[in-house]
């Protein structure tokens, strides 16, 4: 789960990481008031759950409240990578001397948290990683012992040579790790962490993603979820217990199992089509899930055909077929649907499905080809 910059900064503040003064507002008038209260030049920043807002014009410096209002009115309502901006953060502008990058993720290979730091902040860390990998310092953390002061000091001293700043940076690294650990974060990032001209160290951006699997025990963080800033299909899928990702193509697909769902998407592409989505309905034969899945796919006007690809294992094909029949009887579908059911009891399943007059396919390959064909026609 992603949270907004202003929400992540609140977590930082609670942990003692210095952040510039700021307020999140939803109208240009409120931006004016906020800038006035702050009483200094401010930055107006779009709050969207996607990267690249700077390039999209979603971050602007304002020297006074009037300009803040002006910028807010241009940014609010803006569309950034398909997401509408309905909140901006009005925040004190700081005099930047240096920019640093600090980020934490789980290193899957080492199976330990990894702190990454770079003296080149403010740029995308992926770009640094590709073009100048040795510019990134790495520290693996024992997940039980945490970041030790000697480690954060060691890392910080590679980012700066002034010991007063090293001490501040080291403390921020330790505190960011605390945020990362306590929030069950999958990512905690300050980019950039800024050294100001007057010798302070301040986090002027903040990014925290939460491990979805941990939300059951991170109730307070889950409350931060901004459903309006997410894809509506993904929101609906989550509520229905499905796994869904919207794509740009026209062949919708409903599959049981994540690996098979990915392979189905890939196959659509291989045979010259474009998948409209990833959708895993899991191992159940429950008609409710099928209905929810169809409804989610039908929201997308691009979709021209739907391929249902089920491998019946423990859940037998005949049970799945019965579920499909129930679901389809309740739906009024105007789109062509191709069903492929393979595995345990697939013959019985085909008989059951016959009553629906659906297109069926014997193999994934056949089903995919037919779905592409139908999407084109």
């Amino acid at each position, binding site marked *: 789960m992603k949270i907004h910059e202003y929400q992540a900064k609140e977590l930082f503040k609670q942990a003692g990481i210095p952040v510039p003064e700021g307020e999140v507002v939803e109208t240009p008038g409120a931006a004016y008031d906020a800038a006035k209260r702050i009483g200094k030049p401010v930055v107006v920043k779009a709050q969207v759950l996607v990267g690249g807002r700077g390039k999209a014009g979603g971050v602007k410096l304002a020297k006074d409240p009037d300009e803040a209002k002006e910028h807010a009115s241009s940014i609010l309502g803006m569309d950034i990578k398909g997401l509408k901006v309905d909140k901006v953060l009005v925040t004190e502008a700081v005099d930047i001397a240096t920019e640093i990058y600090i980020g934490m*993720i*789980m290193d*899957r*290979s080492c*199976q*330990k*948290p990894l702190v990454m730091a770079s003296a080149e902040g403010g740029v995308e*860390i*992926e770009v640094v*990683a*590709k073009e100048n990998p040795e510019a990134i310092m790495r520290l693996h953390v024992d*997940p*039980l012992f945490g970041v030790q002061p000697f480690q954060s000091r060691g890392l910080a001293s590679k980012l700066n040579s002034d010991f007063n700043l090293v001490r501040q940076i080291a403390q921020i690294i330790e505190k960011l790790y605390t945020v990362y*650990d306590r929030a*069950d974060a*999958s990512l905690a990032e300050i980019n950039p962490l800024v050294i100001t001209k007057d010798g302070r160290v301040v986090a002027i951006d903040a990014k925290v993603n939460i*491990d*979805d*699997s*941990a939300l*059951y*025990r991170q109730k307070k963080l889950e409350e931060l979820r901004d459903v309006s800033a997410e894809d509506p299909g993904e929101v609906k899928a989550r509520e229905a217990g499905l*796994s869904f*990702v919207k*794509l740009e193509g026209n062949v919708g697909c409903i*599959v*049981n*199992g*994540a*690996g*098979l*769902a*990915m*392979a189905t*998407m*890939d*196959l*659509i*592409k*291989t045979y010259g089509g474009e*998948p409209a989505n*990833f959708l*895993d309905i899991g*191992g159940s034969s429950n008609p409710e899930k099928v209905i929810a899945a169809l409804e989610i796919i039908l929201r997308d006007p691009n979709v021209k055909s739907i391929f249902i690809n089920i*491998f*019946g*294992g*423990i859940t037998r094909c005949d049970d799945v077929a019965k579920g499909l029949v129930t679901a389809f009887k309740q739906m009024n579908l105007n789109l062509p649907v191709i069903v492929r059911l*393979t*595995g*345990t009891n697939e013959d019985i399943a085909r008989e059951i499905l016959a009553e629906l007059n659906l297109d069926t396919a014997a*193999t*994934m*390959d056949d089903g995919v080809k037919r779905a592409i064909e139908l999407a084109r026609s």
Partner: protein
Amino acid sequence: MSILIDEKTRVVVQGITGRDGSFHATQMMDYGTNVVAGVTPGKGGNLFADKVPIYDSVGEAVKEAQANTSVIYVRAPFAPDAICEAADAGIKLVVCISEGIPVRDMARVLPFIRERGCRLVGPNCPGVISPGAKVKVGILPASIFADGPVGVVSRSGTLTYEVVFQLSNQGLGQSTCLGIGGDQLIGTNFIDALTLFGEDPQTKAVVLIGEIGGTDEEEAASFIADKVDKPVVAFIAGQTAPPGKRMGHAGAIVSGGTGTAKEKIAAFEKVGVPVAKIPSEITGLVKKAAPNLSP
């Protein structure tokens, strides 16, 4: 022969009184697995299916029923503790089916169990099956498997069944099929599985089914180049997955520009491992890579 499980496997089912645990305990027993005990704290003293003793703790299951392998069906919030309990009780192989365990928990659990000499398969995996020994530990649908020379290792569930179904239909039975799980942190990775298949005399060829996310496939490719003599055929799911989006599995995500299918496919091809473009090519590639296997 097989890897990880065989006729000596004595299974304790953690969460045996739950919906999934009881269903799959029965399925495992029907297939031939020696399920010697179940564990549900507070339900100790009862019998499952009129014959399998239920205990309050894995410790008792080990002591009283000589369990040596555990399979876990408890819900995610309780699964990390279940894994630790099994390892602490001296269980040497734990198969964790449970999905949705927080990454933070697994980072703590893995060192704990390794200190105790315990191997974990999963979590969020379908388990392990050895058709020759008629033993399965997990949720794989037994009917599609056949005894034979192909080792299968995969991060996926149904995609694996799809591939196995084709293999079996084409006369290519399996020595052991192992689902290592779709999470970011897992107990047994491709290299571990390849090592075991390398040492297993029954296994003559290996099918490796990877997917986007992480670098386990890349590391496996290097390992194959250096250490694996048997033919390996690979498939990678998720070539069309957009970056930054989790594709169902917690571990199936391209982030920070790493973990793409393209890189993984390139890594295998670089070391001469044939990579199937689509699942239905896999069987043909296995027959080509290991012609003596053809039935």
